[in-house]
């Protein structure tokens, strides 16, 4: 499926030659980290958005968005607040279905299947897409039960399976060593950063393919934030990640690709390094350099 639109991520072939190293990195860490190795560029698309329009009642919030996210990469959405980042993110696991009066046109595919096709099982779709919210929202249950929740509602009763899933998820979320002795304690007793990582572990436990994160660090202190950023780095080996952030340094640090939104429109998307050093559009440059937003 070819889309003739300059804004979308070009097909992998267009990037077959290794990208030139950025002349001046936005952050020191960016230079150290192998953000975009060649394999990223050749991996197939995991998420595809085509011609997406979204209306809240009569008010249009997204205008004709086309986008691709390659497998095992991190894509960040940036843009001033109210530009529709969260809205688009919530289209990817159909969380917008829950809001009355939402109308959606266009196509969103995970792998090869359109998730807005009639007859799609929303429940199993959401199992394939884990979601982490802006404000950490653990259930008022024990740490163990929080992580096991997704499996329990799928009907898993076997203690062994649950135990294993809880341990691996917590380990993937980098939380295991901190909480392994107090799994039975309430999740509400944890620190903010721990709670957010618990929410990540909870999302990982159902073994999703895509991880959607909506400003996961906006309520956290710098140390907790950097822990989550490191985590994202680890997680992209196994998952495809879309992260909304209003922090451009963060976008530069963690993502391979960046999409810039403005007033409900996707202005441009592409390799993060390229976008931050040499944006194609004037608006992007103005936003990145802090002239508005």
């Amino acid at each position, binding site marked *: 499926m070819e889309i003739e639109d300059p804004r979308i991520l070009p097909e992998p072939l267009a990037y077959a030659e290794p990208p030139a190293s950025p002349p001046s990195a936005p952050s020191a860490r960016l230079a150290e980290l192998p953000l975009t190795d060649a394999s990223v560029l050749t991996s197939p698309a995991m998420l595809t958005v085509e011609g997406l329009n979204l209306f809240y009642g009569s008010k249009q919030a997204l205008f004709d968005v086309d986008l691709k996210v390659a497998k095992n990469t991190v894509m960040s959405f940036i843009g001033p607040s109210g530009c529709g980042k969260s809205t688009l993110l919530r289209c990817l696991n159909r969380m917008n279905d829950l809001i009355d009066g939402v109308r959606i046109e266009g196509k969103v595919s995970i792998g090869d299947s359109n998730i807005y096709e009639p007859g799609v099982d929303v429940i199993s779709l959401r199992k394939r897409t884990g979601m982490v919210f802006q404000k950490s*929202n653990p259930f008022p249950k024990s740490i163990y039960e929080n992580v096991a929740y997704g499996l329990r509602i799928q009907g898993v009763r076997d203690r062994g399976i649950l135990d294993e899933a809880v341990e691996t998820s917590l380990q993937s979320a980098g939380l295991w060593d901190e909480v392994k002795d107090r799994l039975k304690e309430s999740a509400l007793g944890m620190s903010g950063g721990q709670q957010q990582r618990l929410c990540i572990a909870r999302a990982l436990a159902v073994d999703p393919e895509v991880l959607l994160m909506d400003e996961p660090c906006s309520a956290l202190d710098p140390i907790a934030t950097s822990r989550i950023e490191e985590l994202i780095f680890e997680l992209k080996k196994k998952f495809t990640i879309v992260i909304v952030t209003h922090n451009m340094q963060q976008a530069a640090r963690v993502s391979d690709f960046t999409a810039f939104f403005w007033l409900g429109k996707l202005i441009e998307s592409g390799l993060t390094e390229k976008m931050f050093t040499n944006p194609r559009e004037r608006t992007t440059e103005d936003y990145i350099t802090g002239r508005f937003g």
Partner: protein
Amino acid sequence: MKRFTQWLRRGNIFIWFSGTMLSLCLLMIVGLVGFIAVKGLGVFWPHALIQAQGPEGAVLGEITSFEAPLGTEPAKVQFRVGNRDIYGQDFKWFQASEIHGRQEPKDALLIERLENGTFIGRIQDISQDGQPIAKAEAAVEEVKRRLPATNKLQAQIRGIEKGAVGELNRKLEDCRQAMESAGSAEARTVLEQQQNSLQSRYNQLQAELDQLRTTAKTFTVTLLTVDGQTKEIPLSGIVRIVPANELSWFGKVRLYFSRLWEFVADDPRESNTEGGIFPAIFGTVMMVLIMSVMVVPLSVVTALFLREYAKDGLLVRATRVAVNNLAGVPSIVFGVFGLGFFVYSVGGTIDQLFYSSKLPTPTYGTGGILWASLTLALLTVPVVVVATEEALAAVPRNQREASLALGATKWQTIWNVVLPGAAPGILTGLILAMSRGAGEVAPLMLTGVVKLAPSMPLDGSFPFLHLDRKFMHLGFHIYDVGFQSPNSEAAKPMVFMTALLLLLVVVLLNLFALRLRRKLRARLGGSTF
């Protein structure tokens, strides 16, 4: 002047005003409870027995009331003289000027009896099989010595009568009905054999009982009133003898608690004016619990529908209006509805379908604890629905989203996240409902409450929980004892005591629910309201 206007402008006057009102309310509550407590708790304290010379001879009794002179009316004294069977009444009024030579004789006795109320006087003698074995003071000692054993025997007799005999009676009745409907001859013979064995067991029990009864009658006591009349009663007819003027302070305290315990834990006697009110306490608590079990699911389902599932439209608005208006319907109307719908329609149908062999004697087609509880559940539904709706709305949206994003269905989310989060709020509604339900009397009178229930709705005979039985209730007990009993003067103190217990039951039930709510809230980490 300026300072005053400033003071006014700051709104201090309203703070003062609301503060005054608040303290007034508190004072009223404390006063109400205090008044009832004083009136009720004083009942069991032993008073001195006063002997004096009255216009018609000697008088012996407790002074219960004194009226100061009013206009031409002279001062009056009320004596509780007891001996209802001899004097015809428990209380007597005298003009204060007619009473001479008051004294507190050490040997005066107050004797609580199973029948005919209190006796005040002395013991003349005690006889075994008609032969006197002790007289006067020796007789008192003898009675005191033998009383515990006799009381135990009496309790044993009552236990057999209520337990084994009742059970056998029921089985025999079932057997008889089964025989009426039995088809084949073989089935008949089997049933007949069963009946015979039951009957012989019954006869055996009766013989045992007769023996016990005769034993209980071995000893008789002759009582002597202060004006020289005598009355012979079996020793087993005595509950307790109180040498009121001889009691030490410690003895009085012991007597007080023993009477209090009897009141709380025993069955009533003498058309409810004496003995205890345990069946009424039990009935009240049980009814409230059954009501709670019914009202919570009913209301939670309603609230879930209104809040989570229904699209806001005419139907939902109409339902909401109906539910809210239900709260304003007078409770007696609920009683009438309960009688017409639950008792006659539902109960009658159940009888026809499952208990047709017992007809025309109704089983469920008459008032019973189930129907009373259901009627009250209906009465309290609005309270719980409103509280539940509020609680559901207060569950944070991000927790629902977290659950849904993990692939939970709407129902799974409600069951696992929303309802647990709303549980404290639901309990708040239940607390309000219990307080309301425990105090209702009017609807119960139509749907199953009785003055004296022969057996309790929960006992040791299969199937243990008898939802079809009639029951006693503290609220109705107050009305019945205070205003429907022939001897209402004697029963007045019981009214206060029963009212106090009703308050206590409500408070205890509420405390239980509050504790539960606190636990739930602690588990939710105080995150929801």
